[in-house]
């Protein structure tokens, strides 16, 4: 099968495909529209894209021919009774609230192999939505939304409201799902979403009075090892963490004195549950590229306890915006936007060799114009 790279950007969706080692441009969709997430459902071949229109709201599209044609489907909406919490006003004992509306589609995640029509959508302000008819209709997963700590412990980080930004479906049991909420923490269900429990033991949040609080953590991106689903990794606001017991406990594997601490993406090896890659930035306070470059770090210990030391790969040709790209999947995709201006896209062979996929983004042919 041809490798396909689906690249969501703030200015549209680009698809590349690879035959042998050569990547070539295949198509462009949603020109000039921000693509908040796109994913290919390998169960059905359906390609999904979420569009974050500045003016017209968040929309959901699907394609059955890998982006040649698209059909818009109704994006998830909150039920009338759902309320979202805003800020505290002076003298208030409770946070103000207002009717909930979907303000951002963070993530589109297909369900398990035994649920061919199951699609999850993670949204801001913290709503997880579920479809069992391949996206014809969605409903709010109320068991999560109705968690009592949502009012006090879920809040915005980077954006105004909390977002469901990671969804991991256990391939051994589709009723077992783990999600990450930024900010809120990790949650787990064993009963297909009816009930949820927080799973943040071992995480530390330096912006909370009690850094080891049960809730209120900020897992920017969490992923489940394809070869060992008990192993989970997360690039958190406050470090890189790994769990070997299905998120019952987390271990901080951030790099002491090195760049591996703050960032957004994390990618896992398809066959080795000891190996992951992160793309750190310099601390939450600065959020700038490490040494003015894209820095990709791989876990140093291939066997035994992983620790994110060493192996920084610096690609000086990359722009800062690239540090927010996500590298996901068993193969490698450059996935999550935003990247308004791309300098160069890259491919990787386990991080040990890097090739330029395309130089088409670099325009060196400056043209003179009369002024």
């Amino acid at each position: 099968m041809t490798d396909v790279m689906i690249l969501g950007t703030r200015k549209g969706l680009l698809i590349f495909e690879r035959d042998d080692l050569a990547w070539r441009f295949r198509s462009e969709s949603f020109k000039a529209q921000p693509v908040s997430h796109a994913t290919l459902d390998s169960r059905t071949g359906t390609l999904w894209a979420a569009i974050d229109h500045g003016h017209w709201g968040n929309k959901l599209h699907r394609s059955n021919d890998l982006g040649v044609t698209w059909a818009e489907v109704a994006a998830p909406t909150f039920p009338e009774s759902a309320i979202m919490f805003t800020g505290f006003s002076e003298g208030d004992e409770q946070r103000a609230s207002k009717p909930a509306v979907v303000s951002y589609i963070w993530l589109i995640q297909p369900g398990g192999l035994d649920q061919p029509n199951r699609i999850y959508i993670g949204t801001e302000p913290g709503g997880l939505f579920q479809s069992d008819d391949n996206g014809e209709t969605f409903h709010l997963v109320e068991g999560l939304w109705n968690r009592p700590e949502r009012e006090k412990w879920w809040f915005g980080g980077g954006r105004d409201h909390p977002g469901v930004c990671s969804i991991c479906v256990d391939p051994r049991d589709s009723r077992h799902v783990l999600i990450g909420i930024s900010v809120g923490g990790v949650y787990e269900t064993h009963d297909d979403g009816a009930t949820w429990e927080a799973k943040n033991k071992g995480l530390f949040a330096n912006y909370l009075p009690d850094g080891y609080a049960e809730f209120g953590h900020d897992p920017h991106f969490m992923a489940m090892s394809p070869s060992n689903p008990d192993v989970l990794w997360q690039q958190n606001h406050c470090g890189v963490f790994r769990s070997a017991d299905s998120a019952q406990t987390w271990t901080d594997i951030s790099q002491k004195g090195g760049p591996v601490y703050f960032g957004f993406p994390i990618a896992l090896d398809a066959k080795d549950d000891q190996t992951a890659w992160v793309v750190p930035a310099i601390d939450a306070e600065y959020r700038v590229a490490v040494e003015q470059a894209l820095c990709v770090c791989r876990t140093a210990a291939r066997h035994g306890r992983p620790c994110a030391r060493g192996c920084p790969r610096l690609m000086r040709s990359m722009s800062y915006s690239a540090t927010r790209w996500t590298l996901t999947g068993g193969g490698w995709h450059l996935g999550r936007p935003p990247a308004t201006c791309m300098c160069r896209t890259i491919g990787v062979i386990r991080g040990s060799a890097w090739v330029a996929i395309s130089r088409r983004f670099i325009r060196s042919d400056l043209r003179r114009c009369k002024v």
Partner: protein
Amino acid sequence: MPHVRFSSHLQKFFPTLQQNIVVEGKTAAEVVAALNQRYPGLGAYLVDERGALRKHVNIFIGQDMLADRKTLQDAVSDDHILFIMQALSGG
């Protein structure tokens, strides 16, 4: 019946959208509902799931900007022209 004119930007998503449409409606909300009936899905581009006008969308009724952005209860008469457009956010 009131006339409705649109920003050309919406034609990108609704290619058959005409520039001058006549629909029934005594309020702006009723006009949006009628538009959504004629162009299924168009309503969700203009208002959120609570029926509130999206933050960066404007509706003018004649020369007046819509006052009730939450429920769109501004009155519309038969001789009104409604302009529906995106706000000029960001300069």
